[in-house]
């Protein structure tokens, strides 16, 4: 059976992925969203999270950080600030980032909303990176 969707993941530095996939799940801003063949044309905003696609019966995971997904004519284009394969993620660095973000959140009662928001974003990025790295595909 031939795979049915074209998936392209584009970041500012490179094209991370240009492949075929039979199904794709993206972290849309209001919840995880599945895309199969003949999906209606769509543009959606993405959150930080994991993009999961299956190809040849196997599931693959990609960490993405915000951005957008565009579906048209069975082509799924994801433009995101980051797109990282699990193998590329540095686990130690993600752990450190997680610890740092937690610390900032703990000590920061008097912080501005913006600082809190930043720390929360950093925390979520670190957590999803770790999840991608450790191969748990639940998002």
């Amino acid at each position: 059976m031939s795979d049915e969707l074209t998936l392209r993941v584009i970041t500012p530095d490179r094209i991370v992925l240009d492949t075929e996939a039979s199904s794709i799940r993206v972290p849309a801003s209001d919840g995880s969203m599945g895309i199969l063949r003949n999906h209606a044309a769509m543009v959606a905003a993405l959150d930080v999270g994991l993009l999961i696609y299956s190809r040849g019966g196997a599931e693959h995971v990609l960490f993405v950080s915000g951005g957008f997904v565009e579906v048209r004519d069975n082509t799924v284009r994801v433009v995101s600030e980051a797109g990282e394969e699990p193998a590329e993620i540095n686990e130690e660095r993600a752990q450190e980032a997680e610890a740092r973000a937690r610390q900032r959140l703990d000590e920061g009662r008097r912080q501005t909303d913006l600082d809190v928001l930043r720390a929360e974003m950093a925390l979520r990025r670190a957590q999803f990176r770790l999840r991608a790295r450790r191969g748990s595909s639940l998002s």
Partner: protein
Amino acid sequence: MAGIRELRGRIKSVGNIKQITRAMEMVATTKLRKFQDRAIASRPYAEEISALVGHLAAVLGEEVKKRPLFRQGEGDKIACLLVSSERGLCGAYNSNLFRKLEGWLAQEPREVDFFVYGRKAYQFLKRFDRKVERLFIDPMLEEIDYRGAARTANALQEAFLSGAYSNVRVLYSAFESMAKYVPTWIDFLPIEAEALAGDGEGAKNTGDVILEPDAGTIFDRLVPRYLETRIYNALIEALTSEYASRRMSMKNATDAAGDMQSELKSIYNRKRQEGITKDLLDIVGGAEALR
């Protein structure tokens, strides 16, 4: 004979200079290639973002023009991002840029606050008592990555939304070819709504597209990304121009040093020959006299 020794010294120092400029030329070539690669690598993302922005602008229509980033600011000052180089020895790169700037300043009555990349522009502006609102040094221009450019874009956006400025403009050197770098203005903010939907392709595909959560929300998240890609692109292009210019001027210096070296060498050889001839005449003359 003093002349000869002096010449030998000069030949040697010209040779040293030639080695240095050649090394600098090669370094510039490498960096040039690096920045060119990055410019190419960043293109798909920028194209995708601007296609999406165009698409959504077409969906929103007149709505777009009500947004603050699309309306002339309330302030009466102008903010200008000036992208120059950190170091010299790059030919006319900076002076061309400054000439363009002066041409504009001469007929701009409003006050201008500068946001600056590169020490050269900073020094230039300080010399003429211009107000530098901010000098970007973290990261330095040469180490710029997308996130750094995004921070700069945000800083400009915040400055604009603070209400102090009516416009934000960017002056940088666009890279046209290996031998042509053109100082170019971008009207950064407010964004021209017409320019967004310009390619026409967006407008064609507006029907029956699901928008999650909705056009306005997506658009408001897209626009900052769009501004980031514009700044990133301008910075990378300026760097490419800078290194193309530096390579060219170092190549010219190397060539000139080579010419000078061979000229000095031929003078040196002539003088040496003259010396030998004179010595020979002395010896022969001396031998003659002893007979």
